[in-house]
């Protein structure tokens, strides 16, 4: 409640442009509050090899700490993607539109169907090509290159949102 009040206060002070939640420290917590249904990464505890384990340790025997770090880092990228996805300013939209405006919870982005031939782009497109296309054409925002940290985060978020979907690349 205090955080909400704080957000409102901040928004009022700095005006319309500050109607997004903060980046940096606290951003992930706020993103989790906004989008609590984002699935956690796959549970990899089965690859942990400890003194009592009979697991083959095909990766060479990782500890629980290692696996926790993998999850933390992966989830962090996904949460950053959720933040960018819902922040019109983050993609430089000139019209106040974020990705989430048209794609709540990433719906209708179907990352599991890429790569696929997009007639309108004239090539077999990857998800990142569509992210760039959407940012420029639909949100009137920035060009997002393949290595742009925003592209990487967005791809992570969209993939996470389709946890469990069957990959059908090329599907229209």
């Amino acid at each position, binding site marked *: 409640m205090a955080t*909400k009040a704080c957000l409102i206060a901040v928004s009022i002070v700095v005006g319309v442009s500050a109607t997004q939640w903060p980046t940096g420290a606290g951003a992930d917590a706020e993103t989790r509050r906004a989008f609590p249904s984002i699935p956690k990464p796959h549970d990899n505890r089965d690859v942990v090899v400890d003194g009592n384990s009979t697991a083959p340790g095909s990766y060479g025997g990782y500890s629980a700490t290692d696996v926790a770090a993998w999850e933390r880092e992966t989830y962090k990228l996904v949460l950053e993607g959720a933040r960018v996805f819902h922040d019109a300013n983050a993609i430089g939209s000139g*019209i106040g539109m974020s990705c*989430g405006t048209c794609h*709540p919870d990433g*719906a209708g982005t*179907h990352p599991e169907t890429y790569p696929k031939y997009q007639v309108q782009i004239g090539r077999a497109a990857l998800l990142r090509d569509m992210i760039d296309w*959407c940012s420029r054409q639909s949100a009137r925002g920035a060009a997002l290159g393949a290595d742009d940290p925003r592209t990487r985060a967005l791809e992570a978020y969209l993939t996470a949102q389709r946890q469990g979907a069957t990959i059908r690349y090329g599907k229209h």
Partner: protein
Amino acid sequence: MTGPRAPRGIDVGGVDRRAFLRVVSAGVAGLCAGGTGPFAAPDAPTPGRADAFRFAVIADAHLSVDPRNDRAEKALLRAVADVNAMDPQPDFVVFGGDLARDGRKDALAFGARILKAVKAPVRMVVGDHDRHLDGGVAWRALFGDDAYAWTHKGVRFVVVNGVRRVGEGASSATRDGAIQGPLHADDRRWAAFEVGEEGRARLAAHLSGVTKETPVVVLSHGPLYKLHRGWNLWTEDAETVQAILAPFDRVTVVHAHAHQPLAHRIGRIDFHGMLATAFPLPRPPEGVPPLTFPIDRPNPFNPADGCGIGWVRIAADGTADVTHAWWNREPTTVTGRRMRSGGVEDPPPRARRSSY
């Protein structure tokens, strides 16, 4: 050149000046021809038997004054041209809310100016984006009360503010300025919509003295039923609102906000979600009512696909046939007969490209 001019500070010249002038000129011509004009004051209730007529619906324009938002602007101009070209003319045009993308005064004023070109009278419904910055102060200054009623050819029309937020307070006027923060349908930090105690009392008052045989049409931006809370396609006090409508034989709720056709029937109340002009939204992952017909997934490479306007034809017995006039597809009509038959009669066309 003495033609109508754009509001000061809003550059339409670089965007689509010709279309703007065309619709504004048409609106002025309509006013000169003796039409009642846009934003006409509601009339007094005189319930009775309906004469068949048609009203049009435009919704979810999501305007801003930034010239980069020309797509939304052109879409609304197109919608206005479409309703002005309807023959016969609709008796009036409902704007179903979300005129402005983020509730800014200049965007609302810009939208008002475009809508003044509508030849038929315009009835305004407030949307959540319209109220985003100030709880509806700017919207009310332009368009008046957000809850009102009138009787037209024997049909009782009631407009409700269906986009108050739970916990907003007894009166939005006391909370003006409080609605801030990012506005995403899927952001779970937002409270759900409600009509609220005051809104429900006003709805009941607007229906008092109306006989149960009188056809009733309720106009709201929010759906007035519970569909998918995650995307705020949800009216928290839906059951209480529906109880107010339940005594009437024939009730049609026309709502916006979902940016897609939806069809639902609860008791004797029919609910219809209407098309947006700005952009379509995907089918929600849950709660899509069974009477909703399947639609082809919109093509992102065609900004007009999945968008359009609509109209409602009210028959003499009060039956409402709702037409979704897609801009890139054949129109789809959801008949009152279909709604009453639980989806058996008048099946809609089949979809080929369903949602993922």
